[in-house]
């Protein structure tokens, strides 16, 4: 019988065996087993091929001898998968779509082709996702190979979140609209910070521009707007996990109200015009607008606080 096929089969198995010094010994034993199965019979090539095929593909046969530790062990899988999804989908996607994309678009000053810009940003997002997933996998693979183990205590587990009552919840639609408006607003503020000349406009012969006092308020407004965008995103992504979401909303609204009051108290001019009469009319209208906005915001804030209290949402306490 031609044993060439067995030699080639075992050579391939040998190639895939873990290199721990036992490979030759294993191959000798496998050879002996095959010879015992053949037991002196003169098998045809087809019969021998069928026998080896039944035995299994060489890399599979070799894999049975390895004691491979999985890259991510089963007990780490839930937290690993949670972190990958969190970073790759719930953080990177909104960061690229809502922040990096708009900022880079502003930097192009509208000169770029929209389709190629979107494709390039999607490519960047994809690369960032692959890199993040790889980095997370590496960290978890290393972590589970260290003696580090979570020393958990049942007494320290987080409380079961209570779903906010219907009255204190915002609809998904309004959250999305507010979020989009917040992103657009933030982009406008950032653009003004980068090039203040963008905040001026000439209508007919009248030049209008924002007063320098706004430069004191841009940063607080920007921070609050971004905080509101993030809160909306969290409320959309994890409505059950953000127990104090409605109270955070109240806090942001209260801070917005405080800024409105500060701007009103600062007094006009908020807009400067090249024609004094027009400047007076605009700022008088704005004074009225601010007063109305403060009254409406105060009323809404009061309603939100009342709704939160009635729906049993206790204000967060420091502990």
């Amino acid at each position, binding site marked *: 019988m031609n044993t060439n096929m067995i030699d080639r089969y075992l050579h391939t198995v040998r190639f895939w065996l873990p290199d721990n010094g*036992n490979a030759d*010994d*294993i191959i*000798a*034993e*496998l050879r*002996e*087993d095959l*010879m*015992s*199965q053949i037991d002196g019979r003169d098998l045809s090539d087809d019969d021998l091929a069928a026998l080896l095929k039944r*035995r*299994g593909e060489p890399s*599979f*046969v070799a894999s*049975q*001898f390895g*004691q491979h530790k999985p890259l991510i062990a089963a007990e780490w899988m839930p937290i690993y998968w949670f972190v990958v999804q969190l970073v790759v989908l719930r953080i990177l996607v909104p960061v690229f779509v809502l922040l990096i994309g708009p900022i880079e678009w502003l930097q192009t000053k509208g000169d770029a082709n929209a389709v190629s810009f979107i494709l390039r940003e999607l490519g960047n997002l994809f690369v960032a996702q692959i890199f993040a997933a790889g980095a997370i996998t590496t960290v978890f693979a290393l972590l589970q190979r260290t003696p580090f183990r979570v020393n958990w205590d049942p007494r320290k587990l987080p409380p079961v979140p209570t779903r906010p009552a219907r009255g204190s919840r915002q609809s998904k639609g309004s959250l999305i609209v507010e979020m989009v408006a917040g992103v657009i607003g933030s982009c406008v503020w950032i653009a003004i910070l980068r090039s203040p000349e963008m905040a001026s406009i000439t209508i007919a012969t009248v030049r209008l521009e924002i007063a320098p006092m706004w430069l004191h308020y841009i940063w607080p407004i920007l921070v609050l707007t971004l905080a509101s965008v993030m809160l909306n995103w969290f409320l959309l992504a994890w409505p059950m996990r953000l127990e104090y979401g409605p109270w955070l909303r109240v806090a942001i609204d209260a801070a917005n109200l405080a800024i409105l009051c500060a701007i009103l108290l600062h007094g006009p001019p908020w807009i400067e015009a090249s024609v004094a009469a027009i400047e007076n009319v605009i700022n008088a209208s704005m004074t009225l607008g601010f007063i109305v906005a403060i009254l409406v915001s105060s009323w809404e804030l009061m309603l939100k606080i009342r709704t939160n209290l009635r729906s049993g949402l206790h204000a967060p306490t420091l502990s």
Partner: protein
Amino acid sequence: MSEPRFENLRLELRRGCLVLAVLAQLRTEHYGYALRKSLEDAGLDIDENTLYPLLRRLESQGLLLSTWREEEKRNKRFYRLSPDGEVILAQLLDEWLRMNDSIARITEIGVPAS
């Protein structure tokens, strides 16, 4: 539909039993092929890709001893139970009997008295 599910559960159930059967069979010395045949004769099929890695694993755990020896003009690797293996086998057999007894009692609960 139920066939793959049964097959998976059957394999899961067999896994531990095979260790017990191999250890018990190696109270007398066998080489791989002969061991497989003797298990087969006893009604327990085990394929080579399961048996040989299992023998290596049990040997590395100190439960088996092995030696290469010539028999019928061929070099063969003979396995037998080590002293540690005998202790572990006795413990496993005890556990097996207790589990068997428990399963018998549990399954009898569902059988209506005749």
